[in-house]
């Protein structure tokens, strides 16, 4: 509990900064949306673009002039921002102890390494939930001027759940890298690189049928906003796959951290 609270306090500023980024992003996006909203000319412009490009930016599946359609496009960017934050919090919260050489303090206290990992994971998770709620709140607040209907709220809730699962995945991967990597200084950059690689895989996988298999390697494809909007539910296979990734990463984190030398 003491570890959790200390980490929560130490990471609060970082939550505020990320929260600020999200709010700014939502406000700017909605400012753009005001140009698209109920504007048929916009659709005409989009129709002139090559379809591969529309696929790449996930513009095909949505009607940009409606609130739900617009949110569907924004979803990808939310996913990116929230996942990057989660991956960085995850890797940093573990690896900073070695980077700042505080392991010689924190791990010579009467505490097991797994308890330290648990406390820190929970604190990073709290940050993720906080950022998700900020995202949710900012979206709802900005949507008010466009008469959101119940379908939008349902889609929004489903989208937030999907974002939460993605946060969990990248948090777990970040924690695992922080725990397992001997070059602790690189844990954060490796986590974010991994994330960007999987993101580009999700874009490429949509461009060509032969590359379709890549979708299994990219969490960004697990929760496709277009499918969420049209089916109104999540794919069970991908949910299971997400659960497996989270569990494997966390087990790996506890296992490796308890057994490796700490670098001082």
């Amino acid at each position: 509990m003491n570890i959790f609270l200390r980490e929560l306090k130490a990471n609060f500023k970082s939550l505020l900064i990320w929260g600020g980024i999200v709010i700014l992003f939502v406000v700017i996006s909605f400012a753009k949306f005001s140009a698209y909203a109920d504007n048929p000319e916009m659709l005409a412009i989009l129709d002139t673009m090559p379809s591969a490009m529309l696929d790449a930016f996930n513009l095909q599946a949505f009607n940009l002039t409606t609130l739900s359609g617009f949110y569907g496009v924004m979803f990808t960017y939310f996913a990116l921002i929230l996942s990057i934050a989660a991956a960085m919090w995850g890797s940093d919260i573990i690896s900073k102890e070695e980077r700042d050489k505080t392991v010689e303090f924190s791990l010579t206290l009467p505490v097991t390494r797994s308890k330290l990992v648990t406390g820190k994971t929970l604190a990073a998770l709290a940050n993720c939930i906080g950022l998700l709620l900020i995202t949710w709140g900012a979206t709802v607040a900005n949507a008010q001027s466009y008469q959101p209907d119940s379908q939008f709220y349902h889609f929004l809730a489903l989208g937030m759940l999907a974002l939460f699962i993605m946060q969990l995945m990248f948090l777990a991967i970040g924690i695992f890298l922080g725990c397992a990597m001997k070059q602790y200084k690189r844990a954060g950059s490796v986590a974010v690189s991994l994330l960007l690689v999987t993101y580009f895989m999700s874009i490429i996988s949509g461009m060509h049928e032969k590359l379709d298999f890549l979708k299994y390697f990219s969490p960004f494809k697990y929760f496709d906003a277009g499918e969420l909007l049209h089916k109104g539910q999540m794919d069970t296979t991908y949910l299971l796959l997400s659960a497996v990734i989270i569990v494997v990463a966390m087990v790996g984190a506890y296992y490796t951290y308890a057994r490796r030398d700490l670098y001082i």
Partner: protein
Amino acid sequence: MSVIEVNKLTKYYGKARGIIDVSFKVEEGEIFGFIGPNGAGKSTTIRLLLSLIYPTSGSATLFGRDAIKYGPELRQDIGYLPSEVFYYERMKVIDLLKYSASFYKKDCTRRMHELAELMELDMNRRIEDLSYGNKKKVGIVQGLLHRPKLLFLDEPTSGLDPLMQRKFFHLIREENARGVTVFFSSHILGEVQRLCDRVGIIKEGRIIEISDIRSLQQNNYKKIHIAAKSLDVSSFDIAGVNKLERTNGGVRFFYKGNINTIMRKISEIDLSDVTIEEPTLEEIFMHYYE
């Protein structure tokens, strides 16, 4: 019961040598000095005992229990002062100490304030604003606030001014008088000599000598200085004589062997003065490292 028992402890960092086959025991209530130059393996040994790193082979027990398996539990009774202290920079001293205290199954508040007052530590400052010496003081308070039964001190005096060093030594002696066992690692021999009962000397990862300080000084070498008017230096060039050197009006050397032999030799000379001393730990130490 030995408080620390180390058995053939070996640590390699990949191929790089940490320590090799280190074995020793430290008894309850003892102040055990652990001396060696930088890079000899002092910190590695302590970090192994605190299970920050894991041994390549060998084992160690603290209070009779495996140091790694029961590490977290054992550390309830262990205090550690690292050679360089690093704390969460953004925390206030008081918050850091309270955080540290929250891990122990007893109330440490009173002792914490006592120690902070003794070390003249301002607890309202942030760690990042503290000087090296002041950080060290935080380390001392943090390492002692839970009244540990075993203390690991790794070059504890670096960064402390002489006045603080004296206070610190006084504090350690007081703790020791209460029955606290102290493992004192240092390369400053003077302070080891002042404080410790027994010493282990480590060189390039191996223990080369374990002995109590007195017998280390007595059984080893005598430092002999002879002053005489006419003196044939080469007549002292006999077995057991070391580092023979001419001084202003005499000779100085170290001697190890039958004391009667050298006394007979000396008595043959018409002396103006003679001193026979025990060498300082420093001088013994240099001998081990030649």
